[in-house]
């Protein structure tokens, strides 16, 4: 499940212009890559754009991260993390 016992870094992209979700996800991963590598942190990207969930899963999955998508009320939470 997203956010089991990892520290959460949350970024909210809901309602933003396309393709903000993928670009932000990539730059946030880059910014936090050291802490993400420890496996103790998890990046949560909140987006309301459903194609973004596909795109981010693909792109970030190819970079060796685990990606889990959770449907919340009116948006999606894309959880990006590494397994320790």
């Amino acid at each position: 499940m997203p956010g089991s016992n990892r520290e959460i870094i949350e970024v909210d992209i809901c309602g933003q212009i396309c393709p903000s979700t993928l670009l932000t996800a990539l730059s946030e991963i880059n910014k936090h890559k050291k802490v993400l590598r420890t496996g103790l942190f998890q990046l949560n990207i909140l987006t309301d754009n459903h194609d973004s969930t596909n795109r981010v899963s693909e792109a970030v999955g190819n970079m060796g991260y685990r990606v889990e998508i959770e449907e919340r009320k009116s948006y999606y939470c894309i959880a990006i993390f590494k397994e320790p």
Partner: protein
Amino acid sequence: MQATIILISMLLGLCCGFVMHRSDFCLAGMFRDLFLFRNSPLLRSLVLLIACTMLLFEAARLLGLLSFSLPSSLFGLPSLTNLLGGLLFGIGMVLAGGCVIGTLYKVGAGNFPSACAFLGLIIGSTLYAEFHPQWKQLETQTRFTDAATLPQLIGLSQSSACFVVLAIFGGFLFRWHQNGLLRRPSVVKGYLQPQTAALLLAVIGLVSFSLTGMPLGITTSYVKVGAFFEQLIIPEHFANLSYFQGQEFQYLSPLSGQTLNAGAGPFWDGLSLVQFPLIGGIFVGSALSAISMGKFLLRFNIPKVQLISALFGGVLMGFAARMAPACNVWHLLGGLPLLSLQSILFTIGLLPGALIGSHLLTRYVLTP
């Protein structure tokens, strides 16, 4: 008869909005991602859509369900202005975060930047009237040929040319299908696969063309809305603009059996009859899709630079759609399947436009 046409257009819009929202069929994104990420999975669905539309249009023409001959008001003679219109449109749609129909279905789902782009579209298309006489002159001066379509240019029959193009597209599509590249992996509930959306949109396009006499298109109505307000605010200036006086657009309306005239002025005419219900339909169809998915979300705390980009992109797009003439949906889903040279030039222009737009977007709007 007007009521029937309005009802049909509205239904087509509803289906179109619903399908586009469910599959996130963003035409602007397809071109943008090609340059921004060097990978555009949805572009393959666009190829599928164009190929299916070509097949359906040509079959319907041979069966006598469609009657048209080019050049006409729908697709005229090719000129440099089509290419330039496509280029500017490409920049605009990337900065706006969606093309003309993309903007509409995103507004329907509650997207605030797209609402700014919508406003920009009206402003841009109205501004074009100031430059219309000069632009028309350039169009005549830079006309390439007297052929309206690729088959006319190279002396092939429409059917043979379509057959060749379909064989090439078919080859690509078959390979993509075999490699599973047309399917998008998705966990989203209610997600419509873009390849299914492409098939549905091709059918919607055929119904539109055969019943209303036109492929899907909406941009002239934006001018009409802008013209309406301009007439109220600066009536003296408005009266001097020739663009708003003409009724040069002519097409055969199969349902009424009459040739209808239309223009850019704020009048109820043959284009408003089809386009306004279509616009309303797309908006409502998308909103219904978003609400039924539980994904209708209004957010207003958006970075200002994104809103400015969307507004500016909308202005560019509106302006370019008048220069081209017509928007990307008209050319990609209407003209390309008919092998119109205007549409081919417009599409060639879109590519560098989307490239420039992507650079501007990552440099000034979505900076890391």
